[in-house]
């Protein structure tokens, strides 16, 4: 089968999914005020500015058009079908996107590959600044969702949820957390007052969560002062970050953040320092210089802050993937996770949309991956027969094509 036919095959599978599941796909709240957008399979074009009066019309479109990706606006508009300037912005949900692209993960992204546009040299991980062979600086990247990447994004999502509940006072009822279907999580906030905030105000929310422009002195951290572990807001977060960093860090890692003479003192007095943080006032030994201390404070802020995509949250016209629809790059579905359940949530199992059938295909190249309870690959120019979900995953990634049946 050639490329076109593979695409048609994927769309056929998506059509089956939408035929069977459209009843469980709920349009967002305030349906009539939302703009919808659909990425079309064949044309690779975005069908935008669509509006719907009711859920049934929406579901009918899903079943007849069968798009590769389904989006809706975080914004609420008076007239969602009009051109951008004439839509009449009424407000927008507050949205957060956590994506493995924005996080350095323990796997080192070894599953990702790059190709130099100039000489064709290939490599693993995030592409280098310059091609080692021809010094070219243009690359094509292929990214994979892996378990470690997804674990990292899950941790970030949990941290974000903690910020939003404890610091921002949002209730779990106002928030939904969802696995995006690819490499990360979305957190969606629907709150009447927050909805009206403009970009400038949202930027401030982002800065709070990412720790941009944060000055430790405003949170009780100065030369000889520090806040305590149980304090609220960033005061307690920095303290906790310092405590954890002091507790878990090796001499080697201390040196990495630029500490020199203080390292031996920190290691030898570690227990005493930690004890003081737990029981009394935080204590800094005189033998640890204030410059070293500042570096530890900075590290604490870095560790406590959340890696979110800053652009998504500040954009008040953003399009967001709709829950329970399929991701065109994986064939997995975007799926809601209850915050209390997130630890147990397994994206590579729970987001599987296709549970039946097998498909024969030729895989060009794919690293080892897991889907459901099975591991697959790695593959290189191989014919294989795989369960539909795994096959679609590779097809959507462009790593395989469907094998013609004889």
């Amino acid at each position, binding site marked *: 089968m050639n490329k076109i036919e593979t695409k048609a095959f994927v769309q056929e599978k998506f059509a089956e999914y939408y035929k069977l599941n459209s009843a469980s796909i709920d349009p967002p709240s305030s349906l009539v005020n939302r703009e919808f957008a659909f990425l079309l399979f064949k044309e690779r074009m975005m069908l935008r500015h669509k509006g719907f009066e009711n859920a049934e019309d929406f579901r009918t479109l899903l079943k007849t058009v069968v798009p590769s990706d389904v989006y809706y606006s975080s914004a609420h508009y008076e007239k969602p079908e009009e051109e951008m300037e004439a839509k009449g912005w009424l407000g927008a949900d507050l949205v957060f996107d956590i994506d493995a692209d924005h996080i350095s993960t323990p796997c080192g992204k070894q599953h990702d590959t790059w190709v130099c546009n100039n000489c064709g040299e290939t490599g693993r991980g995030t592409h280098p600044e310059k091609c080692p062979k021809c010094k070219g600086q*243009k690359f094509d990247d292929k990214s994979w969702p892996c378990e470690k990447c997804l674990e990292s994004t899950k941790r970030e999502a949990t941290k974000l949820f903690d910020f939003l509940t404890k*610091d*921002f006072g949002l209730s779990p009822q106002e928030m939904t957390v969802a696995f995006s279907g690819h490499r990360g999580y979305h957190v969606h906030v629907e709150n009447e007052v927050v909805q009206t*905030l403009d970009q400038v105000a949202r930027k401030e929310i982002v800065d*709070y969560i990412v720790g941009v*422009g944060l000055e430790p002195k405003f949170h009780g951290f100065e030369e000889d002062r520090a806040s305590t572990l149980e304090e*609220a*807001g960033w005061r307690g977060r920095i303290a906790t970050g310092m405590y954890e960093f002091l507790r878990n860090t090796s001499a080697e890692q201390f040196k990495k953040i630029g500490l020199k003479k203080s390292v031996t003192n920190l290691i030898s007095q570690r227990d005493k320092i930690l004890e003081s943080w737990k029981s009394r006032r935080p204590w800094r030994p005189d033998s640890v210089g204030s410059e070293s201390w500042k570096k530890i404070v900075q590290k604490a802020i870095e560790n406590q802050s959340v890696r979110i995509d800053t*652009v998504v949250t500040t954009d008040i016209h953003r399009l967001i993937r709709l829950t329970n629809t399929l991701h065109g790059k994986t064939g997995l579905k975007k799926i809601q996770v209850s915050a209390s359940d997130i630890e147990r949530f397994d994206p590579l199992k729970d987001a599987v949309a296709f549970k039946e059938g097998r498909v024969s295909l030729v895989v060009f190249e794919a690293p080892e991956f897991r889907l459901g309870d099975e591991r697959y690959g790695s593959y290189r120019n191989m014919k294989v027969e795989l369960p539909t979900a795994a096959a679609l995953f590779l097809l959507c990634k462009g790593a395989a094509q469907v094998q013609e049946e004889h």
Partner: protein
Amino acid sequence: MEKKLFLTRSDLAKYPFIPEAGKYIESLEVKIDELANADLEPILTRAEARVEDAILSNTTGKPSHQDDVEISSFPIAVMMVAASANSHIKRRYALAEAKRVSTLLEDETEEKIVAVARNFNWDIKAVKFNVGSLTFDFALYFPYFLRNAANIQDEKWKLANRLMLKGEVYITKNEASRLLQEEVRRYIEGKLNIEVRALPQNVMERVERLKRLFTEMRGKIQTEEIPKEVMIDAFPPCIRELRKSALAGRHISHVGRFTLTSFLINSGMTVENVIECFRSASDFNERMTRYQVEHIAGGRGSRTKYIPPKCDTLRTHGVCPGMDENCSRIRHPLTYYKRKLRTMKTAAETPTVPRE
């Protein structure tokens, strides 16, 4: 809900924008058409003084001893400023009124501040809260804090530098007054943008006089001209980095591309030359790039010419590569450029003195 606080008539004179003042003014039955009446003269005079002082000294003049005059002069002043149809006068007047309010609030009780704030639907409560060496007087729901603090340019107003717990930002009395100043300023600016129907002759004369006063006061406006020639040496670090990446064909984030394009356009570079900068990108598409560059240059669709984001925003999105010595004095990449051009020009014009 707590018990409703009674606001006295002198409170209404101080805070004439609150709904109760509006009701009171209605009860006085001052009609626009009657403004020509001689017995309403004191109100008109006070209204004019409010605006005049705003123009001259950013204040609103000495309040009238008669509360009725003081209260009614506010809506009349608003009407006069709206009739001036001059955005500079509007901004100046709104700011002067807001500052007046803020100063007065600093001396009010917590209860009264809460009463004024709730007029703007603020979710605020008086508290006594000590943390470290700090004492806070109010807890304010964060969206109301953001709406007013996000435009104040000082690090202590950044949400990231505040104590926030369960959605409440802790603030002092002075800070509450300062935030209310922003709220009042916006509120009055909104009032000034209404369409005013014909005013009586004697009122219009006063409006014309105020407009003349403003023009005299403002004098010659000095606009900083950006020279035709684009001076790459005067670019700020962020733009230099972005341009280098673009020329090398490295990937640039969406914000980065927008920043670079809008900066170059505003520095006077032609659309053609801006497009050339992006030619090395691996996903370069001339038609798309042209469309986007022309859009940013104001040649398409909305017809707005865009300017690059502020330094602060560039930091949020990780576009800022770190400041150089000139960055600490500016908040916008274009300001950096204008200043640097100026110093470069001065340096070039200063004759070198031979060393003795």
